[in-house]
């Protein structure tokens, strides 16, 4: 992996801007994984932001031309920092949408703060992403915002759902040792324990591991008789876990519950039918259930095709709209955009977005979905 694609994009962008027309261009950077296992979701967010930019240009919303500048961080924290440095040094960029992963958003946020340039993560849910800005070691202003509610909200909801709706009292917990997965798992343990449930075991696995049979065999044989498994992590490992669980005979009524990072149709490529009936908490509600999102879904499908809509695209679109609002009030200047973002009151596809002093959205809706293998979909359950 010697040559970075994002750098190729960067050089191409520089070359184009050098010989293009003299019209003023203002860029919104999109720093998400465009390749690798998370590439599907990242590409969806990129398409959503490009759609928003095209619409704004077509409506002549600004006296200059807007452009989306995509960068590939490969869901790799090191690459996310490289990309953040590239973006920070491009003076045409007024704000950043991304990163996708909490593990990337935490170190990248530090780079953007030094620039300073505002960053809105559409999807990073570890509390630390914004909380780190309150630390006294933080250099620069507070620049990190997000439109996704944090893991504590999501896990608390999942714990309550498992405890009250599904009536489970004894759970085993697994996580992938990333800030996202571990954060989700720790918050879940806290919430489930507070309700009076018992956590029988907590184990960490590594991203990229393939064999969980030894671990699952131990969980199955646990003398505390676990009634389900909560997993904090992403779809590749979740799919393998589901598949190997079923192979070991951990079937219904043993439940598998995970978070939004595992909830993507690509899960079924890994798990096959084994995912059927598994539960996934998500922030927000599925885009089909959002009253304000019908127009977005129709426009997106018209622009990119009916099959191209991914689970987090409306969050990317919303982040772009919030930046446009701020741009309208401030003009294309990084620091004034940042100041205006703090004053955000945006009514859009997600409902009303207002940021608290950390940069977290006050719109904290979480819901539960259930996988259905026959049409590779996730159905909302109440």
């Amino acid at each position, binding site marked *: *992996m*010697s040559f970075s694609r994002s750098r190729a994009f960067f050089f191409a962008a520089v070359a184009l801007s050098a010989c293009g027309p003299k019209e003023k261009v203002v860029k919104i950077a999109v720093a998400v994984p465009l*390749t*690798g*296992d998370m*590439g*599907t979701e990242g590409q969806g967010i990129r398409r959503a932001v490009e759609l928003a930019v095209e619409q704004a240009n077509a409506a002549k919303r600004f006296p200059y031309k807007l452009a989306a500048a995509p960068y590939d961080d490969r869901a790799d924290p090191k690459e996310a920092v490289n990309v953040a440095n590239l973006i920070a040094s491009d003076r045409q960029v007024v704000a950043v949408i991304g990163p996708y992963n909490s593990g990337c958003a935490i170190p990248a946020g530090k780079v953007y703060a030094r620039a300073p340039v505002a960053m809105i993560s559409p999807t990073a849910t570890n509390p630390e992403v914004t909380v780190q800005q309150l630390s006294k070691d933080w250099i620069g202003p507070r620049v990190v915002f997000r439109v996704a509610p944090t893991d504590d909200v999501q896990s608390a909801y999942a714990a309550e759902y498992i405890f009250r709706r599904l009536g489970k009292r004894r759970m085993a917990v*697994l996580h992938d*040792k990333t800030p996202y997965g571990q954060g989700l798992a720790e918050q879940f343990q806290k919430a489930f324990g507070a309700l009076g449930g018992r956590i029988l*075991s*907590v*184990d*960490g*696995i*590594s991203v*990229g*591991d*393939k*064999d*969980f*049979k*030894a*671990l699952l*065999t*131990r969980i*199955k*044989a646990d003398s505390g008789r676990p009634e389900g498994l909560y997993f904090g992590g992403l779809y*590749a490992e979740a*799919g*393998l876990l589901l*598949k190997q669980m*079923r*192979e*070991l*005979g951990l079937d219904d009524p043993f439940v598998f519950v995970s978070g939004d990072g595992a909830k993507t149709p*690509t899960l079924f*490529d*890994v*798990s*096959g039918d084994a995912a059927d009936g598994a539960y996934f908490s998500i922030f927000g509600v599925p885009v089909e259930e959002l009253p304000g999102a019908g127009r977005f879904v129709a426009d997106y499908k018209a622009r990119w095709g009916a099959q191209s809509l991914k689970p987090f695209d409306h969050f990317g679109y919303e982040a772009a709209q919030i930046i446009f609002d701020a741009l309208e009030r401030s003009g294309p200047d990084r620091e004034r955009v940042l100041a205006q973002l703090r004053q955000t009151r945006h009514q859009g596809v997600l409902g009303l977005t207002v940021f608290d002093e950390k940069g977290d959205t006050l719109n904290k809706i979480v819901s539960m979905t259930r996988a259905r293998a026959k049409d590779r979909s996730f159905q909302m359950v109440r």
Partner: protein
Amino acid sequence: MLVQQLLNALTLGAIYALIALGYTLVYGILAMINFAHSEVLMLGAFAAWALAGWAPAALGSGLWGAAGLLAAGMLGAGLVNVLIERLAYRRLRRAPRLAPLISAIGVSIVLQNAVFLWVSTQSLAFPQPAGTSAVSFLGASINGLQLAILGAALGLMILLHLFIARTRMGRAMRACADDLEAAKLMGVNADFVIAVTFFVGGALGGAAGVLYGMNYGSIKYNMGFLPGIKAFTAAVLGGIGSVRGAVLGGFLLGFLEVLAAGYIPNGAQWRDVVAFAALILVLLARPSGLLGERAAQKV
């Protein structure tokens, strides 16, 4: 739980052992580590995947289909390995030791990126033969797939043993491993023997790639890295250059990993630490591995 864990360990160990054989065969003759072996195994899996996508109906979903995939993976990986030897290693046979090593790492990166850029950057679904449902036996849920994987791996190991011990070509390989120059003087066509060795080693790696893909149901451009590095460890653990050592090392590593993940509370995250700590201890006591030759240094 014990029966189930034994089966888990055997399946994992069998796959490690198959890959380790590829390292050890090449090392036995050329005293070089073929670091591109993990990519050979990945390409074997992709060759089988391509065949499955091209002719799904002809293959069917039963055991014969799986055997067809295995054959395709072995043939593809074997040929790739021969090609790698011809293009990247042969001219370096007399070069300083570092040169073929770096060349191997280069080949590995090139192959991985070629698949990354041209085939897919994401996990791809790999066909699993039917009959993967679990059957209960002595409290363990034995699944047909695990048994088939174990059977295929053991069968290949026995075939390899017979090939090396009983055939003319096997004898030539042993002669080259003993002393390449002397074998040449006795009229052995060393280039051909080395090419055959790379083919056999690659084919075993390809078989491991296909079995790995079947076991986990998905493949990816970087799928070879982790099992490759672990199987290399297994080969060293058993004594690199020794065929029996590679098999022993593979199963040992499988058992160590399963023991750590299955019996130590909170042990899953310590799995690799336990396995590699054991490796260090073994090497400290026996620097040339469990079954390695004492007079290890080849010139």
